[in-house]
Every structure is written in C-alpha cells, then in structure tokens.
C-alpha cells in the first residue's frame, strides 16, 4: 500500500485500484474542532478536483475535493456519530471515503510523505 498526499492537504492510501481518502493532521489542526462531516454516498462518481465531501468546524464549512477521479465505494459511517475522529485520528480512523480509481495515472505528481512534510514546513 502506498500513501500519497495533495497540496490540498488530503492523503490517499492506494491498494491496487482501490483507495482510501482523508485529510491530513496539518489540515485538522488548521480547521480546529470538527463538528460535522458530509461524506459522499457509495456509487457516487467523483472527478479529480471536484467536490467530494464537506468538513465543518465550529466556525466554518470547508470543501474537500476529490484528489483523484473514481467511484465511491463507502463513506466512513463512524463520522456521522463521532466527527471528532477527524481531530483525534485524522490519518487513520478519521478517513472520509473509499473509492475505485478511474485512472491510476492521476496519482503521478502527488507527493509522498517526505515531500508533503517539506511542503507543510514551507507554509
């Protein structure tokens, strides 16, 4: 399994042609207390760069864009009852959705962990 990162502060775990998407620890820190997450329903078709999910902190709603194109297989059901999982375990239990990749070549050009760490350090 390989983990990629985007400059929109999402992570993507890829295993074959299936992937799991969430937001990074840096992103949850910037957002603050998460009170609501709207995840996409299974079967929804996502286009790279298009709206995929919405994450709401006490003060604001933020869009989460699809880091790659694909078809959603599952939204994280645990976030409905416990949206704070995104704060406590953003890169684990606080995942947002899973999808089947439409075009694995879209992963080219995404960052690995070291590149993302350097990217965040430069912000």
């Amino acid at each position, binding site marked *: 399994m390989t983990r990629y990162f985007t400059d929109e502060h999402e992570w993507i775990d890829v295993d074959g042609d299936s992937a799991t998407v969430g937001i990074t620890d840096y992103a949850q820190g910037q957002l603050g207390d998460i009170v*609501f997450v709207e995840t996409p329903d299974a079967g929804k078709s996502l286009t790279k760069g298009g709206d995929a999910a919405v994450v709401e*902190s006490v003060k604001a709603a933020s869009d989460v864009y699809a880091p790659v194109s694909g078809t959603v297989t599952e939204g994280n059901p645990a976030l409905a009852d416990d949206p704070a999982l995104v704060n406590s375990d953003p890169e684990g239990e606080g995942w947002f959705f899973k999808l089947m990749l439409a075009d694995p070549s879209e992963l080219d050009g995404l960052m690995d962990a070291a590149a993302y760490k350097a990217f965040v350090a430069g912000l």
Partner: protein
Amino acid sequence: MSDTNEIEESTTDAPLALPLDAWHRARGARMVAFAGYVMPIQYDGIMAEHLWTRESAGLFDVSHMGQLILSGEGVDAALETLVPGDIAALAEGKQRYSLLLSEDGGILDDLMITRAPMGLYVVVNGAVKWDDIAHLREHLPDEINISHLEDRALLALQGPKAVDALKRIVPGVDTLFFMEAGSFFWGLEPLWISRSGYTGEDGFEISIPAEHVAEFADLLCAQPEVKPIGLGARDSLRLEAGLPLYGHDLDPATDPIEGDLSFAISKRRRTEGGFPGSGRILKALANGAARKRVGLLIEGKMPVREGALLFAGADVVGEVTSGGFAPTVNAPIAMGFVAAPHSASGTNLEAEVRGKRVPVTVTTLPFVPHHYHRKGAAQ
C-alpha cells in the same frame, strides 16, 4: 480544501496590529484578519475556550472596538437625535445598550453608552467605527466634542468566576451590578470598568491605556480562573446568548423592531419620538414588523450557517444571518430573520444547505440563559 464560510472579514487595506499582538502570538494564538485588525481567532481550540468561559472566566481582547467620549453642553439632547435611548435619564455610572440609526430608521451600529465623569463614554463596533465617528461628527453640533480614545485598549473578562479573578487585582469591582461602570485603581493606574459583556455571562469590560495592557493581561491570566479566549469562541458564545452581531444579524436595511431590539427604544422616546426613523419604528412597535429576528433549533448535526434560506413548503420565508455549532447546547443553532406569520416559537420550517433541506424550529432567544449580575436579583 477551501473555506466557504470563514469568519475573516478582510478589508482592502492591510490589517493593523493591536496593542496585544505580540502577547497573543506568544500564547500560541492563531491570528486572522477581522474588522481591519489582526486578531486571535483561537488558542487551544474554540470548543474548549467556549466551555471554559461558561464555567470559569475568559479574557477577550476587544481593542478593535472604538472607545469614544462625547462631551459638551447639551450632549444628551444632541445624541438623542441619533439614537432611540433615553440618554438624559442615564445617571453617572449607568450603561445602556443603544442603536445608531439612519434617517429611515435602519441600524448603522449597535453601541454601549455610559455616563462617565468626563462625558458620555461610547463603545462602538470595530468594523464600522470610522463610519460611526464620521456620522456623529456630521450630525452632532460643533460644540459637542468627540474624543476617540485610540491610546486605550479594551479587555473583556467574562464568565461566572470573572468577578473572583478581577476583584483580587482591582478591589471593589464586585460592587458593580450589570450595566454599571466606574473608575477603579490598579495600583496607581485608574481603569474604567463596566460590568457588562457580550457572552451572556457575568463579567467586565476594562478600558486601560495601551502601554499597560500587556502587563495587566499577564496578571489576569496568572489567576487560576482565567484563560485567554479568541474570536471564534466569542462568536459561538454570543450566538448561544442570542446576541446579534453587527454586519451579520443587523445592518442598515434592518430596523430595531425587526431586529427584536424594541427594548432599546426607551419609554420616554416611545411617546416623544424625535429619533431617526421614529415614524416607521413607532408604527412597527405598535403594529408589529413584517419580519423578525428569531432563534432556530436545527434537526441533526449539520450546521446551518449565514446565508442559508428558510422555507415554508416551497416559499422562501426568511434567511439565516448567523449559525454554527453551539458547544454548550451541543448542537447546531442559528439566528435569522423570518416573515412575521412564521415567526412564532415552535414554527417548523426548513433551511436549505448545499441543496438539501434541513428541518428547523423557530425558538425564543437566548439558547443558553443569561447569567448577569443584576441589581435586585436573587444572588
């Protein structure tokens, strides 16, 4: 990710630093632009800061607000031509919430007016303070002096334990009741302190020379009851307390009756009139306004925020003007304006968020009971 409903209100000019800028940064605050200034939005997190204020005491830097002294012969009568409050009846050390009204009765700002020894001490909102000063200068006679206290900072200490912390540093402040103010000494330094605030809790607002504010803020935060609190929690606290935020819940297109602020039209002024828009406003006071500011309880967990339209069936009957997650209520809440026929408490409506309808119920404000230290109330 991108914020679609950010609290930031950037102006075209670069935001200015306030006297406590370095103090906030040293305490780990995240700074944002608000009302033309760089201000702390949070330290530990909005949820924790909100709950701390409700159970203990929170220190807020509100130095962006405008502090004015109006003085001169006939200042009461002159100011009464611009606001609907009874200023003449304001005794020394008494404070009143009032409204700066446009010619047609729209709200230009909401403000606090206190009778101080030097004149009328007025605190106005930061985002519109320059417009307010220009409006006052244009409409008050030349013999009325307007002094803008730009060399003073303003702190708010709010919460049930605010009195315990502050009286240890400034003896005697516990003698004040809600909406009273006076001069108190911190060592040799005189401070102007009122028992008021904008969180719904007991608390104080402290006007202090900018050169001393960092030392004073350090001293307050050394008290076990006190932590610094950012703008984020200030917003969620005032929303739970049902208090309108100027520029969001109130604006020049809204009159005081629509804004559910008829308490700000003093009794004498109701019979005498003589304030801007008094014809329209007194008529609305007698007959009711076409729309009204109300509270909204939201079904489920999804926040309903500013700008969401409110529906009764297919008809748009109102709009949300403030909304978010309420930490003390532990649910999303909102405030908005709805057409009078739909404004009764208990009315079921729907809000539209990202194309989806969410059931909401009109409710009376506040969402969390006020805990003011009122004179004559059971202690």
